[in-house]
């Protein structure tokens, strides 16, 4: 069999022990999309791969393409994002993002724009004072880039324009919005205040680098956060495992 070796840049999303001393990595790569690769011997303390095969780490990698699993041959650390790993809340957010990435992105479906967005968000998570706001932004924009974009411009019940504002129901089944009169006849959505709808609309166009100047009331923030999380859970079609942990850390720490 002919082995093809390729070079790519990637972010480690998930690490699972495999066999005696190996690791199976789920990697979001810049050029290949999400891939799974074995890192042979990576659990041995003296392995050159031990530090490069930890979650959130950005690496430059040489990978052998395999039939089912690829094989990580060499990895050089570009960024360790150590501030994320040293903070429980940031770790919890980062872990949830990683789960969103491998649940929502198909394997071997390259999307460089999404890769760069994920990377920029991790860089921000490493340094921001407000990881909670960043995560709301990330969750909304990441899903939007993958085609799960909330449609907030007009009521998906009667077609009335919602652009001038007003409260509505956010439908987690479709990402659509119902105006207040349609909401009364259809109570299946997540009811959002006018402020929350406006906030969500703003986040969809806001620049990541200017996130720190965005101010908004806690109640609207909570509404949007819960709405997006339920939207993600519903769209993925299965419970997102790391969300329970994230919620407990957000609540108690």
């Amino acid at each position, binding site marked *: 069999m002919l082995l093809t070796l390729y070079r790519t840049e990637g972010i480690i999303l998930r690490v699972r022990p495999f066999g*005696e001393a190996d690791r199976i990595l789920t990697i979001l790569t810049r050029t290949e999309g999400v891939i799974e690769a074995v890192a042979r011997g990576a659990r041995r*303390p*003296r392995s050159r791969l031990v*530090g490069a095969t930890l979650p959130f780490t950005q690496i430059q990698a040489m990978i052998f393409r395999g039939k089912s699993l690829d094989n990580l041959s060499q990895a050089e650390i570009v960024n*360790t994002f150590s501030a994320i790993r*040293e903070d429980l809340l940031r770790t*919890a957010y980062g872990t*949830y993002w990683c789960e969103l990435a491998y649940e929502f992105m198909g394997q071997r479906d390259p999307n460089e724009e999404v890769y760069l967005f994920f990377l920029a968000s991790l860089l921000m998570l490493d340094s921001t004072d407000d990881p909670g706001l960043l995560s709301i932004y990330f969750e909304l924009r990441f899903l939007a880039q993958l085609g799960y974009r909330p449609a907030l411009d007009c009521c998906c019940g009667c077609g009335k324009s919602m652009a001038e504002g007003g409260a509505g129901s956010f439908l987690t089944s479709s990402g659509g919005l119902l105006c207040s009169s349609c909401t009364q006849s259809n109570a299946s959505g997540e009811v959002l205040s006018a402020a929350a709808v406006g906030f969500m609309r703003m986040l969809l166009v806001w620049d990541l680098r200017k996130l720190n100047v965005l101010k908004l009331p806690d109640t609207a923030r909570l509404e949007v956060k819960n709405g997006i999380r339920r939207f993600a859970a519903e769209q993925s079609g299965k419970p997102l495992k790391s969300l329970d*942990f994230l919620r407990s850390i957000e609540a108690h720490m």
Partner: protein
Amino acid sequence: MFYAPPMARLITELSRLPGIGPKTAQRLAFYLLGQDKQDVQRLADSLIEAKEKMSFCPICGHLTDVHPCSICTDASRNASIICVVEGPSDVIALEKTREFKGRYHVLHGAISPLDGIGPEDLRIRELLSRINDDIKEIILATDPNIEGETTALYLTKLLRPLNLKITRLARGIPVGGDLEYADEVTLIRALEGRHEV
């Protein structure tokens, strides 16, 4: 069907063991059938005996045949230090060094949100119930991977208000390792953990 039912069953059972594939299971099965009956009997007896007599210590969670375990009842050990580890094999590893003279607490796992393992699945409540005025130090000896680190961070937050000394095992260059081959994370950790000589 290549094998008679008793042989097939043996191979199936052996291949359920961790790290044993079908080929190895087959080799082990042929080996066992080539042994004297009393040798095989001794192996079978030891499996049953270990399973029947070993269970978890109600205090520390280590595997033991007496309750509480001999470490928890050893009066010569320092009862004011508790070393928190992920599994019973970590207790064995630390005991082999003969360096640590305190007591242990086995969590039976580590926090792994992506596998749906949260703090409530570990023996954390049992740890908290052991903490009283006599406990002076908690050593967090979880693995230096994401699950172990997350668990250590979680325990640190939980234990911080209790006015205890909380320590974490030093991480750095393995003995016998080469500095130039160490990765960046390991080097940073090793620098952070440096000490005066």
